[in-house]
């Protein structure tokens, strides 16, 4: 098998890194949002629900532009981040991870929320009668029982991040070695007339990565389902 070119290695590693950090951002945020949406009732809940789901329905370019305006150096949040922590998101791989996370969040929230809503809340009440306080109930009952949802949410977020294009290119541009993930590299190749081989090679890499992720997730989902007993399989 021909070895990968430096550009391909860069794009592959960057895609994995962006995917990883995107999942890391999505999970806690998604869990928190899902709990609020599934368990709390307050006026204006529909608004939160709507905002979280916006990336699903808006063109990704719009999200990218909104991110650029708010999180760019001169944006309200971006300026504050730079002055306080010297973090720059626009045109860096960190920004690519943030863009991917924002696009993936609604999928994660939906998966976890479904899991929370399907959960037998009687089990939490049972834990309380056994003397468990709120934190212990959450850590020992709620969290393990919505593990299938967390797992599904993580896989969806990772897959969505690997495929993210519109918001990423708008927010962080297409800089080889910095923000050029697999889809962006492929896009760059298709813009160059001539030899199609580099584009085909990138396509094969993308397919292999996606398939591996799917197989791994299936394996994990089975293990979790076994742990929870045959009665409660993954909600996906």
């Amino acid at each position, binding site marked *: 098998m021909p070895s990968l070119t430096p550009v391909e290695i860069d794009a592959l590693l960057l895609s994995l890194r962006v995917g990883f950090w995107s999942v890391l951002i999505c999970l806690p945020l998604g869990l928190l949002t899902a709990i609020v949406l599934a368990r709390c009732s307050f006026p204006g809940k529909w608004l939160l629900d709507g905002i979280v789901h916006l990336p699903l329905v808006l063109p990704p370019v719009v999200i990218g532009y909104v991110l650029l305006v708010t999180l760019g150096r001169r944006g309200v949040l971006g300026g504050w981040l730079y002055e306080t922590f010297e973090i720059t998101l626009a045109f860096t791989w960190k920004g690519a991870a943030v863009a991917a996370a924002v696009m993936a969040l609604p999928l994660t929230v939906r998966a976890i929320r479904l899991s929370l809503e399907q959960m037998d809340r009687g089990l939490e009440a049972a834990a309380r009668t*056994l003397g468990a306080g709120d934190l212990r109930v959450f850590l020992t009952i709620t969290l393990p029982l919505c593990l299938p949802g967390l797992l599904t949410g993580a896989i969806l977020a990772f897959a969505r991040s690997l495929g993210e294009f519109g918001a990423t290119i708008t927010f962080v541009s297409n800089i080889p070695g910095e923000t050029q993930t697999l889809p962006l590299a492929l896009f760059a190749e298709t813009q160059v007339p001539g030899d199609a081989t580099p584009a085909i090679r990138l396509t094969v890499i993308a397919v292999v990565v996606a398939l591996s992720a799917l197989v791994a997730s299936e394996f994990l989902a089975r293990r979790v389902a076994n742990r929870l007993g045959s009665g409660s399989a993954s909600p996906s």
Partner: protein
Amino acid sequence: MISVDISLRRGDFALDAAFETPSNGVTAIYGRSGSGKTTIINAVAGLVRPERGRISIAGSVLFDRDAGIDLPIAKRRLGYVFQEGRLFPHMSVERNLLYGRRSGADQHPTLAETVELLGLSSLLTRRPSSLSGGERQRVAIGRALLANPHILLMDEPLASLDSARRAEILPYLASLRRALDISVVYVSHQMDEVIRLADTMVLVEAGKVAACGSVEALTSRFDLAPLTAERDAGAVLACTVSEHDTRFGLTRLSFSGGSLWVGALDLAVGDRVRVRIGARDIALALTPPSGISMLNVIETTVTEIGAGQSSQVDVGLMAGDTALWARLTRRSVSELAITPGMKVHALVKSVSIAGPARGARLEAI
């Protein structure tokens, strides 16, 4: 003392329950489904919040609307055995059992004792999903006990089981009662369970407490018969084993006002046992009968005669402090001219041993 006085409303259903029962022993909350039994113990456990009232157990107040007291569920120290078990599916049986264990020296019962008492030793490493319904309920009972609760609340723990599984668990519940000095509040709509397990009974009807008292007292009351007598009416007697007749294989049970011969019981002299005598299993004679095969003839006084125009009439009898209940044809009552205050001889055709020993029905001795 368990003291409950609460009201709450849920849509069309209104609960307005007040009762007091001793906090030692087993209290049964008995009533038809939908009468509000479960709501009462859920309020005691803190799972539902009453709109008005007060709940206290052995002097400590769990809930008092007026004083603004509403102890969190986790702080009430009440074991709760749910109808459907509610074992944690992601934990082994052992981890389920130990979930509520408190740190501290004074642990009674211990895990080993609980496992022994409920016969769980072969289940410890298994997952709840691989257990049978009866096994699940036993684990649920063990889990509640190991949290070292002040009171054990049980919400129809046998209702989801078929009769074979029920028969499998009942002896465990009865042994629990004997082995552990723990008070239990037991919700049930099965009179046989109540008679077998409970000391005190709270009768609930349509969200209200119809009566509260000892099982013996309430089952002998005519006015409560529509609630307590499921298929056939009958009186419950508290007895003590007084002698064994090994030659004929019999055991004599004595109660205030007389004694009964039953088939040999595997109990020691002095053990307490509760028996039930169905109203249809008593015949009356005006003079001491002679030349009959029945061993059990009890001298009684007629206390009341039930009303009604059907062919059958209930007759209330008193032997010492023990109430009995006979169902005769109206014609017999009329021909024998039975009236309150009259001395009659009750011929007992059969006795069922309701507990705590076993549920066998002993026919005509």
